């Protein structure tokens, strides 16, 4: 069966309202960025103790979602599983948009964003032992590869697309493991320091990416009244369940390594300190336990609602997993000297949720949603509706739907 794709008409009232509302978020983004840029990062929750806050959390989260989406897209374009074809284009498109979002997040987190070009002056003005500099190679290559991949898919060059797709999947693995290494190689922060961190990042990326694709597929297909086989979602659900089990093993190994030997202070802080709820409720509860129950329970795993709930829970839970790394990882005071450090230098840092930082983060999330919604209108991302005639050439960009 040949899968046809089409754009959406974009003439309904709901769609227009959605685009306008999301467009307002662009203005919010510009405003909240300018406030932080002109007044300094004092308007955020970051401090000298917790230098990385919400934006870095969102940045690693979005890179994970992007890598996960690209790896899922390989099911249809590399492994040629026909059942996944309806979501193939969407997965690649989401991969690009999420990566663009991640780059926005990391860019606005810089103290001097206008100097970011220094990162790309390889070997000349930048320091190639820094994971940020190495990752900048990965990230630029990744975005380029994804664009070529999507273009080949639109052109209908399946053989080339599968080759580029294979390269892109390995590249996505490298991208996200490199992001994990940003944290995993930092030897003075106990919660960060772990050789398993890159692999844990990759597994978490797969769970969150798969879940986001389940959610987006169900929501867009329902809203645009497109038929889809429930089996597509169920099979993704089964895949999700097995990756969550791997993630559970990874998290368990990582935390056990840190807990077993007596230098466990930081991990005990993570489990019982100020941020215990991020770890236990979000990372473990919503990221692992709840979806695992929903996806293995004989009654819920066979219902669309059960799988979608599990996916939603993972999408929130993996965000908690990122937050449980970034914030408590630096909040725990470093043991400068044996004994109890008195006063502020011995107290864990506190990360307040501040309006400007939250607005900035959320507005970038909505910008990504806006780009996605516009993409559905102008690119042939979604499968054609039953009985709908596909547009003349399979690659028409900007064609006004039927």
């Amino acid at each position, binding site marked *: 069966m040949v899968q046809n794709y089409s754009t959406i008409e974009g003439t309904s009232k709901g769609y227009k309202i959605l685009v306008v509302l999301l467009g307002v978020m662009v203005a919010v983004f510009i405003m909240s960025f300018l406030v932080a840029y002109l007044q300094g*990062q004092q308007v955020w929750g970051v401090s000298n103790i917790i230098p990385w806050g919400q934006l870095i959390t969102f940045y690693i989260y979005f890179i994970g979602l992007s890598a996960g989406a690209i790896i899922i897209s390989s099911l249809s374009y590399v492994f040629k599983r026909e059942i996944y074809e309806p979501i193939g284009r969407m997965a690649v498109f989401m991969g690009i948009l999420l990566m663009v979002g991640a780059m926005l997040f990391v860019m606005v987190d810089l103290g001097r964003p206008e100097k970011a070009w220094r990162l790309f002056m390889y070997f000349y003005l930048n320091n190639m032992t820094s994971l940020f500099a190495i990752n900048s190679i990965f990230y630029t290559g990744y975005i380029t590869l994804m664009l070529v991949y999507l273009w080949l898919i639109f052109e209908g060059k399946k053989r080339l697309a599968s080759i580029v797709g294979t390269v892109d999947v390995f590249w996505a693995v490298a991208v996200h493991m490199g992001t994990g290494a940003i944290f995993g190689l930092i030897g003075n922060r106990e919660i960060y320091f772990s050789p398993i961190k890159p692999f844990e990042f990759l597994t978490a990326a797969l769970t969150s990416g798969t879940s986001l694709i389940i959610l987006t597929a169900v929501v867009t297909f329902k809203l645009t009244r497109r038929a889809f086989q429930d089996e597509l979602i169920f099979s993704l659900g089964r895949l999700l369940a097995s990756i969550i089990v791997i993630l559970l093993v990874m998290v368990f190994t990582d935390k056990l390594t840190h807990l077993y030997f007596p230098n466990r202070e930081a991990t005990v802080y993570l489990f019982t300190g100020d941020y215990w709820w991020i770890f236990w409720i979000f990372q473990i509860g919503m990221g692992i336990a709840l979806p695992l129950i929903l996806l293995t329970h004989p009654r819920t795993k066979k219902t669309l609602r059960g799988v979608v709930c599990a996916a939603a829970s993972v999408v929130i839970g993996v965000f908690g997993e990122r937050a449980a790394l970034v914030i408590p990882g630096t909040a725990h005071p470093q043991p400068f000297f044996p004994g109890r450090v008195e006063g502020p230098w011995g107290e864990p840092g506190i990360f307040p949720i501040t309006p400007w930082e939250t607005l900035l983060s959320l507005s970038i999330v909505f910008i990504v949603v806006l780009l996605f919604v516009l993409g559905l209108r102008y690119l042939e991302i979604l499968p054609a509706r039953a009985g709908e005639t596909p547009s003349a050439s399979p690659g028409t960009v900007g064609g006004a739907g039927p």
Partner: protein
Amino acid sequence: MSRWGMVIDLDKCVGCQACVVACKEENNVPHGSPEEQKSRREIYWHKMIAVTNGKYPNVRTEIIPMPCMQCDHPPCVTVCPAKATFKREDGIIVQYFRRCIGCKYCMVACPYGARSFNFKAQEAKAYHHQDEPPDRKSWAPWPFPVRTQGVVEKCTFCFHRIDRGLKEGRKIGTEVVPACVEACPSQARVFGDLDDPQSPVVQLLASRSSFRLREELATKPKVFYLSR
């Protein structure tokens, strides 16, 4: 080439924090507001921590002055993506404002909390040493009469003093020392060349048992402490 190092004798240190004040004065480090201190956004080049061991009545509190440790294997230099922080030939780790992009990776990687971020544009103050105007030709933005918002900064071992002293042919370690060493009323701090067998630093280290902070991380700090 010399390798500058510092020895802090904890037995002599009285905990007056004159070093902290002298550092703030010499390098124009801004005094944070009470809100900034509370939210941990005050800039410190040199900080003082108090460490308690034991329980009342057998309790002992030690005062540890902590400048930047100027590590021989500095993690901050490894992680800096923009070559903004680098090791000079004499072993001093400096931060170059014009290159710093403000990613704060060095703050995450520093095991000693020696780095501070400029969370706002600091008030421009005239350099207080009016008799010795900063030599912009050779020091670029140092010492810091004006600082930039959005970059990371740290202790420099007062290298502007060292550089000027070397140019004028004065003896580093006795005639010319960093501001914190100069201000210490109990002479608990000694500064000098770690590679010179005649320097007071090397002789002190040979005479007493010394330690460095967080030696298990193998960063090889050039700030040594003589225990009490």
